[in-house]
C-alpha cells in the first residue's frame, strides 16, 4: 500500500536507539535517562502518527502490511501488519513503556544496561503484537524474554535470582509448547511450510490434531496470561522486580498471553476453541474467586497486587470464552484497562516501598498523613481496580458480564452459575483492595525510626500517576474509543464461529 515501512521503523527504532546507549560515555547517567525517554516518546509519537494517518479504523483487514523475504529456503518472511486487535496493545505498550522509563529514573546501578534492556523489551513487545508471520511471532515472543530475565535478575529484591529463574523456566518451558504448535501447524498438509497468518486462517485440520495444537498454544499462553494453575511465577516475579519492570510485566507482558489467545487460538483454531471455551469459562470464573481470596492471605504488598492482577485476568478469559461479540469486546477492553490499572498500582506500590522500605502490609500503617498525594492516587486506583463506575475497569467487567449473559452458546444454568460466581469476585475485590488501603494508609503510627524520612511524591511521580489516571478515567467515561478499534475485527473473528 504505502511504500514506507512504518511498522518496521516502529519495531526497530527502540532497539537501534538502545544499542546506541552502549556507545555512550559511562558517566553521563542523566543523559542516558533523557535519551531513553526521548526514544520511547519518539516511538510512541511515531506510532500515534502512523495510526492516525495511515490506518483506517473501519477496515477489519490487515493494514500497513510489509513483506520482506528473510530466509529463502523455508519461506520465512519479515512480515508485519496490524489490525484493530493489535492497535490497542501497541499503543498501550508505547504508553506504559514510556512511563516506565520515566519511573525508572532512580535506578543508578548500571543504568546503561538497564535502559538498553528496557528498549529491547519495547521492540520485542511491539514486534509480537504486530507480526503477521507465525514464526516471527514466536521469535519476537522469545526475544522479549531475555530482557525481562536480565531485568529481573539484576535489579530486583533479595530473592531475585530465584524468581528470575522461575520466570525463565516457566516461560521457556511454555515456549516449547508454542514452538511445537507452530511447527505442527505450519508443516501440516504441505511440503512447504506455511507461516503466514492469512493462509493459516483458512487452513483446516482434523479435529484431533486441532485439539492438540490448541492445547499446546493454550499452555503457552496460559503461562503468560496467567491462567491458574500456571500462575505462581507471577507473584514471585512481581514481588521481587523493580517497580518499573513490574509496570512492564503487569501492563504489557500479561496482555501478550491474552492477545495470543485471541490471535491464534480463536482466529486460527476456531473449532477447537468452541470445544474448549466452556472449560475456559469455568477456569476463568474459578480464577477470579481463587486469586482474589489468595490475595487476601498475602502479607506482601506487591504479591497482593500481583494476585489481584491474576484475578482480573480471569475476566479476560471469561470474555474470550464467551464467544460473543460483547464478551470479546469486553475482553479487549479489559486488556487495555488492566494494562493501565495494574501498571499504576505497581508503580505506586514501588514508590511507597522506596519510602518506607517495608514489604509487609501488617508492618505499615498511618502513611496517609506524611504522603497525602500517594494516598489520594492510591485510593483512586484501588477504586479503579475494584471496578468503580466511571473508571475503565467497571465498563470492561460489565461488558464481559453482559457478554456472558447474551452469549448464545451456553445453557441457561451455566450462564447463571458463571455469572453468579464471577459476581462473588465483585465482593471479594473490595475486601482485598480496601484492606491494602486500610493497612497502608489508615490509622496512625509514629515513625520515629531515624532513617525513615518521608517526602510526598514529587512532580515526576505525580506526573506518572496522573498520566495513567487520565486514560483510566477517560476510557471509563467514553469506552467507545477502544471499541472503535476492535469492534470490526471482533466481528470478523466471530464470524468463524457461526
Amino acid at each position, binding site marked *: 500500500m504505502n511504500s514506507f515501512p512504518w511498522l518496521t521503523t516502529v519495531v526497530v527504532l527502540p532497539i537501534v536507539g538502545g544499542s546506541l546507549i552502549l556507545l555512550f560515555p559511562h558517566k553521563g547517567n542523566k543523559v542516558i535517562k533523557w535519551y531513553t525517554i526521548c526514544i520511547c516518546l519518539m516511538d510512541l509519537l511515531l506510532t500515534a502518527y502512523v495510526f492516525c494517518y495511515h490506518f483506517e479504523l473501519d477496515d477489519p483487514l490487515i493494514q500497513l502490511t510489509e513483506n520482506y523475504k528473510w530466509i529463502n529456503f523455508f519461506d520465512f518472511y519479515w512480515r508485519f501488519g496490524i489490525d484493530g486487535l493489535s492497535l490497542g496493545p501497541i499503543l498501550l505498550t508505547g504508553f506504559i513503556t514510556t512511563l516506565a522509563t520515566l519511573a525508572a529514573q532512580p535506578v543508578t546501578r548500571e543504568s546503561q544496561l538497564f535502559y538498553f534492556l528496557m528498549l529491547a523489551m519495547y521492540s520485542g513487545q511491539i514486534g509480537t503484537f504486530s507480526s503477521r508471520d507465525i514464526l516471527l511471532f514466536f521469535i519476537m515472543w522469545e526475544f522479549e524474554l531475555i530482557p525481562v530475565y536480565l531485568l529481573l535478575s539484576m535489579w530486583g529484591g533479595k530473592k531475585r535470582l530465584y524468581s528470575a529463574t522461575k520466570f525463565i523456566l516457566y516461560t521457556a518451558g511454555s515456549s516449547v509448547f508454542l514452538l511445537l504448535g507452530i511447527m505442527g501447524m505450519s508443516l501440516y498438509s504441505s511440503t512447504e511450510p506455511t507461516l503466514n497468518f492469512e493462509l493459516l486462517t483458512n487452513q483446516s485440520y482434523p479435529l484431533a490434531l486441532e485439539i492438540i495444537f490448541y492445547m499446546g498454544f493454550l499452555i503457552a499462553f496460559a503461562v503468560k496470561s496467567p491462567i491458574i494453575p500456571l500462575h505462581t511465577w507471577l507473584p514471585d516475579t512481581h514481588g521481587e522486580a523493580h517497580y518499573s519492570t513490574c509496570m512492564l510485566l503487569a501492563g504489557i507482558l500479561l496482555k501478550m498471553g491474552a492477545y495470543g489467545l485471541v490471535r491464534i487460538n480463536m482466529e486460527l483454531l476456531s473449532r477447537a476453541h468452541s470445544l474448549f471455551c466452556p472449560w475456559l469459562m469455568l477456569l476463568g470464573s474459578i480464577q477470579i474467586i481463587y486469586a482474589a481470596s*489468595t490475595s487476601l*492471605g498475602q502479607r506482601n504488598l506487591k504479591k497482593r497486587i500481583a494476585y489481584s492482577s491474576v484475578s482480573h485476568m480471569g475476566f479476560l478469559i471469561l470474555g474470550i470464552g464467551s464467544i*460473543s461479540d460483547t464478551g470479546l469486546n469486553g475482553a479487549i477492553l479489559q486488556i487495555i484497562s488492566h494494562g493501565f490499572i495494574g501498571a499504576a498500582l505497581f508503580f505506586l506500590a514501588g514508590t511507597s516501598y522506596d519510602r518506607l522500605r517495608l514489604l509487609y502490609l501488617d508492618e505499615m500503617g498511618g502513611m496517609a498523613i506524611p504522603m497525602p498525594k500517594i494516598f489520594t492516587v492510591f485510593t483512586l486506583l484501588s477504586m479503579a481496580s475494584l471496578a468503580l*463506575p466511571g473508571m475503565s475497569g467497571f465498563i470492561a467487567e460489565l461488558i464481559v458480564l453482559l457478554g456472558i449473559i447474551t452469549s448464545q452458546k451456553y445453557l441457561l444454568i451455566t450462564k*447463571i452459575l458463571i455469572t453468579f460466581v464471577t459476581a462473588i469476585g*465483585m465482593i471479594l475485590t473490595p475486601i482485598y483492595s480496601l484492606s491494602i488501603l486500610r493497612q497502608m494508609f489508615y*490509622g496512625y503510627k509514629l515513625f520515629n525510626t531515624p532513617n525513615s524520612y518521608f517526602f510526598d511524591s514529587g512532580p515526576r511521580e505525580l506526573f506518572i500517576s496522573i498520566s495513567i489516571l487520565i486514560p483510566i478515567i477517560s476510557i471509563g467515561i467514553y*469506552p467507545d474509543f477502544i471499541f472503535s478499534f476492535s469492534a470490526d475485527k471482533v466481528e470478523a473473528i466471530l464470524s468463524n464461529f457461526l
Partner: protein
Amino acid sequence: MEYTHQYSWIIPFIPLPVPMLIGMGLILFPTATKNLRRMWAFPSIFLLTIVMIFSVDLSTHQINNSSIYEYVWSWTINNDLSLEFGYFIDSLTSIMSILITTVGILVLIYSDNYMSHDQGYLRFFAYMTLFNISMLGLVTSSNFIQIYVFWELVGMSSYLLIGFWFTRPIAANACQKAFVTNRVGDFGLLLGILGLYWITGSLEFRDLFQIINNLIYKNEVNLFFVTLFALLLFCGAVAKSAQFPLHVWLPDAMEGPTPISALIHAATMVAAGIFLVARLLPLFIVLPAIMNGIAFIGIITVVLGATLAIAQKDIKKNLAYSTMSQLGYMMLALGMGSYRAALFHLITHAYSKALLFLGSGSIIHSMEAVVGYSPAKSQNMVLMGGLTKHVPITKTCFLVGTLSLCGLPPFACFWSKDEILNDSWLYSPIFAIIACSTAGLTAFYMFRIYLLVFEGYLNVHFLNFNGKKNSSFYSISLWGKKQVKQKLKNKKFLLAFLRMNNKEITSFFIRKIYSHRINKNVKNITRLFFDTPHFGNKKTATACLSPNESDNTMLFSMVVLVLFTLFVGGVGISFSQKEIDSDILSKLLIPFIDLLHKNSQHFVDWYEFLINATFSVVLTFFGIFFAYFFYKPVYSYLQNLNLLNLFEKSVLNKIIANNFINVLYNWSYNRGYIDVLYEISLIASVRKLVKLNYFFDKKIIDGIPNGIGITSFFLGEAIKYVGGGRISSYIFLYILYVLIFIVIWY
C-alpha cells in the same frame, strides 16, 4: 417549560466543578488551595442552590401536569449491545432532587462551621459535593446501568466520608465495612440487572416494566426467574437502606463527621434504597411474593431498629438505629403498596432526622470543649445531661426533631407515620399491631435521648470524679439496677462537690484546651485521640468547663430545618374535604399505583382519621411516659424508685422484670448479636478459606514446580558425582557391568 426539561441533564453536573477543582488544587497546589479554604465552600453551596432552584422549577411543573420526560443519548454502541445514558424526570425525581438539595445545602452551611477547625476542610467539601452529585445522578437516571453507576458512586462517596478521619482505626474499619456490606447489595443489584436484561433484552425502565408486565400477563415467562431477579434487585436496596440482614454498616458509619451522618441518614445514602424500590415498584407490584417480602423485611427492620436503639450509649448510634427503624416503616409502606405514604415519610423523616443529627452535632461540638475530641466521650450520652442550660437553642431544635420523630400531631412525621400505620391496618392486622407498638417504642427511645442529654445535671463531672469509665455506672443511670442506693449517696455527695467546683473555673485550663482544639497539627490532635493518660491528669480540670452554644452558622441551618419539620407535613395533608387528593403530594403522584385504597372509597374520612390519630398519639404518649419513668433526671431518682416499688409489689415480679430488662439491655447493647454472628460465621469462614487458599497456592501449586526444580537439582548433582571424570571408577563400573552381563548370560 419544555426548555427546562431539555436542559435538566445538567442537574448532576452543575456541582461537579467543585470536587474536581478542589481535587486538582489539592494535588497540584496544596498550600495555595488550602489557604483559600472558605472560598471553596461558597461556590459549592451556590451551585447546589442553583440545582435546588432548578428542581423546584421542575416539580412545580410536575404538579401542574405530571408527565414523564426522558432523554437518552447513546453511550457505547456495539453490534449487539448499546448502552445509553440519559435522564428521566418524573414526580419521584423532582421530589427526590428537592429533598437532596435542600438537606444538602443546609448540611453544607452547617459543616462550614462544624469543620472549620479541621485540617481536611476542603477535602470534606469536595467529598460532600461528590456525594450530592452522585445522589442527584441516581435520581435522574433513566436506565439500570446508569442507576448502577451512580449507586456505586454513592457507595464510594460514603466510603470516603465515613473514613474521613482516617487516622482513627475505628473509622478505617467502619468505612471498609460500609463499603463491603454495600458491595454485597450491589452484587445482588448487578445480578438482578443482568438477569432482567437476559429476560427482557432491555435496560430502560419503562420498556422493561412493560415487557415484564406483558410477559407475565401472557404467562410466557418463568415466574421463578423473574421473582429471583427482582429479589436480587431488592438486595441492593436492602444494603443501601440498611434493612435487616445488611444493616450492620449503619451504626458503624457514625464514625464519620456528624454532618455526614445527617446527609447519609436524611437525603442521600439510605434514601437511595427507598428510591430504588419506589422506582422499581411497577416491576415489584406484579410479583406479590416480592411485595410481601419487602413488607416483611420492612417490619423486621422496624422492630429490630427500635429495640436496638433502646440501650445505646452513643447519641449518634442511637439516632442511627432510629433511622433504621424509620426506614423499615418506609419499606413496609412500599411493600404494602402505599407508594405515597412511603415517599411522604421519606420526606418528613429526612428533615426531622437531618435536624436531629445537626442538633446532635451541635451537642457533640459543645461537649468536645469539655471532654476532648474522643468520640467515645463526646458522643456518650451518659456523660451528658442538663445541657438545657448551656445550649438552649440546640435544645429547642432537638426537642422539635424528637417530637416530630415520635409522631406528635403538629409536626411533620406525625402525618406520614399516621398514614403508614393506617395503611398497615388495611394490609394486615399483625403487621399493624407490630408497627403501632413500635411507634410507642420510638417515642420511648427518642425521649430517652432527649432526657439523658438535656435534663438533669451535666454528668461529665461524675466520670471525672471517679476517674475511670465504670460500666456499672452506665447501667445505673440507664436502668436503675441493684446498686442504686449506695451509688446514689455517692452521687449526692458528688453533686455537692460539683457545685463547689463549678465556681472555680480557671481560665488557664480553658486556654489550654482551646489551644489543642485549634491546633492544626494533626499529630497533636491524633495524640489526643489515643493518649488517654495524657488527658487523664487534666480530667478534674476539664470538668470545670461548661459546654457552649454553637455558632450562628450552625444554628441557622438547624432553625431552617425546624421550620421544615414544622411545615413540611403540609405537602401531604389535604385541607379541603370535598376535593379528593387536593394536597401537593397527591397531585405529584396521582397516576401511581395504590394497592390498598383500590376498593375503598377515595375519600378522606376525618372521623376515621381522628380515631387513628388519637390511637397513635396515645401510644406515643405511653412511650414518652415510660421514658420519663426510667430516665427521670438524677436528682429526683429517689422518688422514682419509690414509684417503681409501688408498681412492683412482689419480689418475684421484680426479679422477672429485672431479668427481662437485663436481657433486653444486653440484646440492644450488643447490637442484637448480629454483628457477632457475622463475625463468627461469615468473616471467620472467609478467613479460613483465605488461609486454605494461601496454603494450597503456596504448598501445592507452587510446590510442584519447586519440587521439580529441587529433584532435578539433586539428580544433576548425582550425575555430576557419578560422572566425576575418574578413570578408575569408569573402569570399575565397566568391569562390573561386564561381570553382571556374564552372570546373566550363563
